[in-house]
């Protein structure tokens, strides 16, 4: 009787693993070991490559004007769409409306997000922390359309908000389909993003630091201003940037809560493609939006660093 059982007596999982191992060695010999990280990154690079290629598609489309005789994009390349985009007052108005709105929403969201994140990180009660987290994730996981739908019900002319105002003898007011309704909806949409970007930065600040500032005579306002805010800067940069760019480019909230009269850039782009069918003009506006967005991101990164947005696990 042999001392060792034959190979066929090994458990199936061993044999499967051995076969996989042999297969892997055949496809990727050990002397290529240095290339393994790139092999692991390749699928992600290819997937994101779809986006990179599609950017070229957009750029190409933006250089072709709409031929009004055939309703087809022109064959030759021209910068005419860009000249038109810069000379049309509507484009400027929509651009300024989006940018101004994005700045206001970012400010309001950060003002609301900081106390929320602070309370969530600092509370001694685990149950309260979980409640705050759930209240944050529920809207985050529900999606924009359903949330905007909720606001339509709540803020409509016969909605709860107007009924409460009615009890106080006020209204009814037209709460929907104006600029402020859009901004309000955007703040609600952005709040979970901002809190989730801010909270890790705040939990990195030891509570003792605040206590130390207090025991050295700083009141709470000064502790916040000189200790907590500077230490939480990466969180504020990350949160502010995410809110700013997502708001600037949002489509659903202005479309639903703005009622068609409060278009942001994304709505203008959509209309160029699907209402006016001027693909070239729509692509031009898209290119301009991508440029403005990347400039903003680059500017903030250059001024403040990548903050909490870094994809690497630990610092550089």
């Amino acid at each position, binding site marked *: 009787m042999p001392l060792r059982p034959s190979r066929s007596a090994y458990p199936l999982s061993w044999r499967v*693993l051995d076969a996989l*191992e042999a297969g892997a060695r055949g496809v990727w010999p050990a002397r290529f070991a240095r290339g*393994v*990280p*790139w092999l*692991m*990154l390749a*699928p*992600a*690079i290819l*997937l*994101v490559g779809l*986006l990179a*290629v*599609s*950017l070229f*598609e*957009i750029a190409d*489309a933006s250089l072709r004007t709409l031929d009004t005789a055939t309703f087809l994009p022109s064959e030759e390349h021209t910068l005419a769409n860009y000249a038109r985009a810069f000379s049309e007052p509507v484009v400027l108005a929509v651009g300024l409306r989006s940018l101004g709105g994005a700045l206001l929403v970012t400010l309001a969201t950060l003002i*609301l997000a900081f106390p929320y994140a*602070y*309370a969530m990180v600092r509370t001694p009660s685990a149950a309260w*922390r*979980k409640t705050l987290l759930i209240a944050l*994730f529920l*809207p985050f996981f*529900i999606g*924009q*359309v*359903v949330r905007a*739908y*909720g*606001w*339509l019900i*709540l803020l409509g002319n016969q*909605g*709860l908000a107007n009924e409460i105002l009615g009890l106080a003898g006020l209204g009814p007011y037209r709460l929907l389909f104006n600029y402020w309704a859009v901004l309000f909806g955007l*703040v*609600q949409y952005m*709040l979970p993003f901002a809190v*989730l970007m801010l909270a*890790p930065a705040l*939990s990195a600040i030891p509570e003792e630091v605040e206590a130390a500032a207090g025991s050295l005579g700083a009141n709470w306002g000064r502790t916040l201003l000189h200790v907590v805010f500077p230490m939480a800067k990466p969180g504020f940069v990350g949160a502010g940037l995410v809110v700013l*760019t997502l708001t600037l*480019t949002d489509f*659903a909230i202005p479309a*639903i809560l703005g009622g068609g009269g409060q278009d942001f850039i*994304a709505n203008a*782009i*959509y209309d160029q493609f699907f209402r006016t069918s001027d693909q070239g003009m729509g*692509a031009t506006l*898209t290119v301009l*939006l*991508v440029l403005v*967005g990347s400039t903003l*991101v680059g500017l903030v990164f250059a001024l403040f660093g990548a903050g*909490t947005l870094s*994809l*690497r*696990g630990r610092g550089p």
Partner: protein
Amino acid sequence: MREARAKRLVIGALVALSLLILSAPTLVVLGASFTAGNIIAFPPDGLSLKWYEKVAGASDLRQAFWRSLQVALICTIVAVPVGTLAGLALAKHRVRFSNALQVYLLLPFTIPLIGSGIGLMLLFGEAGVLGSLWPVGLAACVINLPFMIWAVTASAGALDPDLELAAASCGAPPLQTFLLVTVPAVAPGIITGSLLMFILALNEFLVSLLLVDARTVTLPVQIYNSIRSIITPDLAAISVVFIACAALAILALDRLVGLDIFLKSK
């Protein structure tokens, strides 16, 4: 101690305001879905389940929901291996050009969604694949991929490199080490990432709006198209499906990895 009280009061008031703003639309949709009346109203005119009955019988809504589920599944199935491999490569290995690579892999976040949507629409249109569902799932995967990579890199920080060395010194070949040691060690990140990818793809709206046609509308697009015409309570009832899915995802996240991981600093 007056100051401590004032601090608690200010923070408490702002948190209460945020809680109200965050929860109001969800509660209103939930409440309105149970109305017995024929118009949408909150508070509802009496309670009934009749709109749920109507939704269960409406084949267009059911099919739209089924398509959204398929999109979410395709997105997750693609994202999990791709994002896990990329996340581990970034976290464990010193890769050359890692700064440029980082900028590149963050493209889905830095390109505005409308840009990604329009670009993919042109690209898929040229390839002639618009009108089927898999491009929508693939698109949802591309635009949210950084979430998956993020989740994995964050939990790879907790991975002790000695574990892999120990496995190797016990005679485990590389693939076996990877499958039986590395991957289980970052499992919390993989679970978090896949849940995020699934739920974000289920809710995905703008890119789907650009990529679907009348035969392939997903549920968020269907709801959007309907609220632009008339708002009936059956929309509230179907929206509750999303609320239920979100609640399930949160429950799973809490049970499997704990919600607290979102508070940890890197």
